[in-house]
């Protein structure tokens, strides 16, 4: 267990700046998720911590010790790869035992430890199979078992669930969370799936174009997104973002007029989550428009209105029914969060 610190770390490929200079501290025992769209530098960041990628400048410290010049094998880490990275010519047993073998653990202790670990991830019956004889989920378990067979200072996980089918992904997610609770090892987890990030993380670092744009608890990221990018990236269906202006204490846009506590200004983007809106029959509703689409998700109906350039989605009751193109009205629920962003910089405007 250890704290990981990236100090003024920068990464260039030749002349191309992949990751601009930035710092990041991962606390001891924390589950930090690096979240962002593909190509945002999250995997590169992880590979730099692992030592698979050199850093151009700055320092990486694991447990207070500078590891810049240490090869991966001396960093005392374990990693789970997206494509599992199993050893195809070894049995499951040999795969899991390999890290122990390299560290000179004797045969008897090794076998005992492997058996114990395999039981933990429910692989006990498959120890003598080859990776090619396993299903995707089982291979993922082998990769996981190989990582936890010894107790490293940190775990690194690079999109470990992305090759699994949706159902398995959800159950493995819970297992990962439980495992982290049980072992308490500092974990860095890379994903582009915001659901995984929200459910697993103690803190999430949202990345975009090589930069960490927000680093906070999942709750905070959800309720107080730092900018338009985070606001649009987190949440499903994503937050409604409407361009408009503020006059006389009200946010105005085609079909929208909502009271806000902010100074008068133009070029503002208002953000409100679909679950913070409800259908209304009030006389002068804050949001009016024509019904554009109705999508039943099971426990709710997603109602999408359009008025001019404005398109707004709300989560309505499952039993709601109406004709397409019918006039419709929405209002923020009591206690709803209304977010305001600067249109040019994308930054959040403090309310």
């Amino acid at each position, binding site marked *: 267990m250890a704290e990981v610190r990236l100090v003024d770390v920068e990464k260039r490929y030749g002349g191309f700046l992949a990751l601009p200079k930035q710092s990041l501290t991962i606390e001891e025992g924390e589950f930090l998720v690096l979240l962002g769209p593909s190509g945002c530098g999250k995997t590169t960041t992880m590979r730099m911590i692992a030592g698979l990628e050199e850093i151009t400048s700055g320092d990486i410290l694991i447990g207070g010790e500078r590891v810049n010049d240490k090869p991966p094998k001396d960093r005392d880490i374990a990693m789970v790869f997206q494509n599992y990275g199993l050893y195809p010519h070894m049995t499951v047993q040999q795969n899991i035992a390999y890290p122990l073998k390299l560290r000179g653990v004797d045969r008897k202790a090794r076998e005992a430890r492997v058996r114990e670990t395999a039981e933990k991830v429910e692989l006990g019956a498959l120890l003598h199979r080859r990776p090619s004889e396993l299903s995707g989920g089982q291979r993922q378990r082998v990769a996981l078992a190989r990582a936890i067979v010894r107790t490293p200072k940190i775990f690194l996980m690079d999109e470990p669930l992305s*090759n699994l089918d949706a159902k398995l992904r959800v159950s493995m997610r819970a297992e990962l969370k439980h495992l982290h609770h049980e072992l308490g090892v500092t974990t860095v987890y890379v994903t582009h799936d915001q659901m995984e990030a929200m459910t697993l993380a103690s803190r999430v670092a949202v990345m975009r174009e090589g930069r960490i744009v927000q680093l906070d608890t999942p709750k905070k990221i959800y309720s107080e997104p730092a900018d338009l990018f985070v606001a649009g990236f987190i949440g499903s269906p994503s937050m409604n973002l409407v361009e408009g202006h503020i006059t006389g204490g009200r946010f105005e846009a085609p079909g929208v007029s909502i009271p806000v506590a902010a100074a008068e200004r133009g070029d503002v983007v208002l953000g409100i989550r679909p679950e913070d809106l409800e259908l209304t029959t009030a006389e002068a509703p804050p949001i009016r428009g024509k019904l554009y689409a109705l999508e039943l998700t099971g426990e709710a109906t997603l109602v999408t209105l359009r008025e001019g350039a404005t398109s707004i989605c709300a989560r309505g009751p499952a039993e709601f029914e109406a004709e397409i193109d019918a006039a419709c009205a929405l209002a923020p629920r009591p206690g709803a969060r209304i977010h305001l962003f600067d249109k040019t910089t994308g930054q959040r405007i403090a309310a």
Partner: protein
Amino acid sequence: MKRILLWWAERALLVLVSVIVLFPIAWMFLTAFKSPRDAYSLSLNFTPTFNNFVTVFSHPWNLGDMVLNSVVVASVTVLIAVPCASLAAYSFSRFRVRGRKFLFFLVLSTQFIPAVVIVLPFFLMFRQLGLLDTRIALIIVNLAIVTPFVIWMIKGYIDAIPTDSEEAAMIDGASRLRVIWDIVLPVAAPGILTSAIFCFILTWNEFLFSLILTRRDAVTLPVGLVNFRTERGDLWELMSAAGVMITVPIFIMALLIQKHFTRGMTAGAVK
């Protein structure tokens, strides 16, 4: 209808090609078991005899010495070329070094030079060193011919292995050499074996350099064949017997390659 016709045309063509290719080989095998009296006859009705094989291995032909020379030269060449080429191929495949592409091109470009152009410099060099008519000279020359080719072949196999497993091993605590030994070599083994057999065949069949660089002691099998053209005429039955001795090991190896070749293609396929 058209498809059936095409099917038959295809078969007919295959049979034709096979006959053209295999007939001389088959005829050689037949001749090897004929007595000198039957060697020139076209009749398939003859009494087979093993005398030719006994003759070629005894004085003055001494084919045994040539077999030994060929085996030693080919084996030692393979034993040196394949390990060196494997390491070189791994480096070419994995390390992003400046000028890597040019270096690789340089290695391959040695293959563009016709053998006849360099055989004379080699002859002079080995005369200077007093290595003419030795197996060492042949091994050195064969290494020069074969190694670049084997590097190129093995690199292809290593390129096909995903790097994930290697990186996993490095994180699990292995050094680079350990990764090569524990992960890359076992996974690439079918490919490396194929390359080794290929390398053996190339060396085994090599003719020009052996012809120029050897006289008596280090003569290899292909050059030995020439001995059967004597003042008394061409001794076809003996030449065929010697030809069989050259061909059979290669046949066996080709069969081995065939089996491993398909395995080599699918070995790394674990996601």
